[in-house]
């Protein structure tokens, strides 16, 4: 297992290099140099800012040297200073907003796994039943619905009309005066809509995948064998079939991580959640390039880590992988 883990970690190195190269290319996409745009957009920007930007991007040096020194700074988590008025280091701005984004994404992931697997298994085991048909409709609608629109509708329903759930931020105004337990309830109430909505697309996709994976497995000979030797249907389905059907699903889970992280821009903006996605949106609107670059790199690294976790879980679940 350790050998497998080391192999995966080494495999990540070229990916990391590739990620930084693509980010670097994106950074140089802008017509003209980054300093031109920044100074054009901002009438207050004088020669001093332009000079600082030039030295930060080292635009006077050849491209490969610019790249190398950018990566060197990145390696020690120096992502530069934000262009916004607060002039704070980019890395501080991102790190203080990262926990809430990661919390929401992990909760969504738990919801996706917890709901999609039972839905997929039940629809496969009872193929063409009423449940299977209803879940097929749910899957198609869930996959096709613009989630930001559904967010608007749910805000009108639960926030404005029924008044059950708060529709912005992560804490109520009187949060400081609440006892710890009620504070937790308050946080949960704020997180319900964002978590459910960001899970929806992945949930629909994974249920469908789980269903087809399960359908494939229960047609296999070893399932017939398990039935033939007189095991109960429960044991056959949940012990023999489920474990095998879950394997390909783990890979799909890993692949759904970028979508989940990308969605945080939309939901954090709609629900005014002070996370990394909202920071990204504000930085894009303000053309705060150092922050945009920083979040782009961190988003990709988070995806990479998520995929590593998926790979390791796969290896834990399937002995064939770690031996070979």
């Amino acid at each position, binding site marked *: 297992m350790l050998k497998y883990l080391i192999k995966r970690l080494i495999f990540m190195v070229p990916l990391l290099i590739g990620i930084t190269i693509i980010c670097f290319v994106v950074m140089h996409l802008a017509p003209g140099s980054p300093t031109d745009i920044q100074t054009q957009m901002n009438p207050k920007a004088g020669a001093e800012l332009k000079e600082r930007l030039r030295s930060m991007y080292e635009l006077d040096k050849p491209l490969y040297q610019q790249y190398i020194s950018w990566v060197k700074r990145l390696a020690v988590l120096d992502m530069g200073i934000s262009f916004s008025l607060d002039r704070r280091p980019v890395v501080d701005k991102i790190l203080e907003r990262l926990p809430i984004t990661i919390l929401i994404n992990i909760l969504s992931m738990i919801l996706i796994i917890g709901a999609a697997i039972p839905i997929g298994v039940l629809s496969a085991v009872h193929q063409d039943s009423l449940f299977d048909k209803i879940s097929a409709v749910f899957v198609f609608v869930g996959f096709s619905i*613009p989630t930001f*629109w559904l967010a608007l509708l749910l805000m009108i329903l639960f926030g404005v009309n029924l008044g059950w759930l708060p529709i912005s931020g992560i804490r109520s105004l009187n949060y400081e005066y609440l006892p710890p337990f009620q504070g937790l309830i308050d946080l949960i109430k704020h997180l319900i809509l964002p978590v459910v909505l960001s899970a929806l697309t992945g949930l629909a996709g994974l249920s469908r995948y789980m269903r087809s994976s399960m359908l494939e497995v229960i047609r296999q000979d070893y399932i017939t064998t398990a039935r033939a030797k007189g095991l109960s249907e429960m044991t056959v389905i949940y012990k023999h079939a489920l474990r095998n059907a879950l394997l390909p699903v783990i890979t799909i889970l890993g692949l759904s991580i970028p979508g989940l992280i*990308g969605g945080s821009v939309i939901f954090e903006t709609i629900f005014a959640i002070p996370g990394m996605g909202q920071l990204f949106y504000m930085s894009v609107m303000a053309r705060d390039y150092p922050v945009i670059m920083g979040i782009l790199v961190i988003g990709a690294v988070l995806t990479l880590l998520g995929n590593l976790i998926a790979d390791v879980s796969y290896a834990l679940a399937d002995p064939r992988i770690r031996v070979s």
Partner: protein
Amino acid sequence: MRGVSWHKFFTNKMALAGGIVVVLLFIISLLAPWISPYDPGEINLRMVLSPPSSNHLFGTDQLGRDVLSRMIWGSRISLKVGFVATGIAIVIGIILGAVAGYYGKWVDITIMRFVDIMLCFPAFFLILAVIAFLEPSIWNIMIVIGATGWMGITRLIRADFISLKERDFVQAARTIGAGDPRIIFVHILPNAMASVFVAATLGVAGAILTESALSFLGIGVQPPTPSWGNILTAGKDNIDIAWWLSLYPGLAILITVLGYNLLGEGIRDSLDPRLRR
């Protein structure tokens, strides 16, 4: 299209419904100048935010413009973005996938590593970052959505090419002296088109969703050009007083995307089982 059982497709009610939605949308966007009741840009300040009525079936927006007319014209934007973005993704995907699958070895390794790297980026982050550096024009949006959405098609085509290139008909073509480009495009590619067609249909659905989300956030199609996404932005700003601004454009997106998804899945189900994965 080789490998598609049309009989099976036409007996699949869901797929047929999806196909009808897609065709209807084409007709609506084609006939937009003749069927939209008002000029989509016509401002009427005496009719600001008026609810649905017989004059304005879907109500009016914050400038008194007719929402139905704006939605009809907005369907053109959705179709344009959906098709151009997917077209770009398919061209990139076919070329890279065919080259990787056909030549194999280091060419394959290099291209597939590149795919792995691109898949590490949350696509929405990459799109937003690029648009922040460029201008949020409709052409830039189509290019960026296409340029960040080709990886799945590359993988599909590569897998098809790996299994097809060893077949007898490819050997036969090679024996009579056909060159690589001819074998790739004339002999192998037509046999892989069915799965590309499925991926393309689902890709249009995804591109339409992405465009609407970008326009909703104000980074996509810019007003006054009407798009379903930017009508929803006005809906969000007037969420407590004008529900019609939020409801109808969103429904239009849902029905359109659902149509393309049902059509794509329907075609996949009618694929020859030997080609289906």
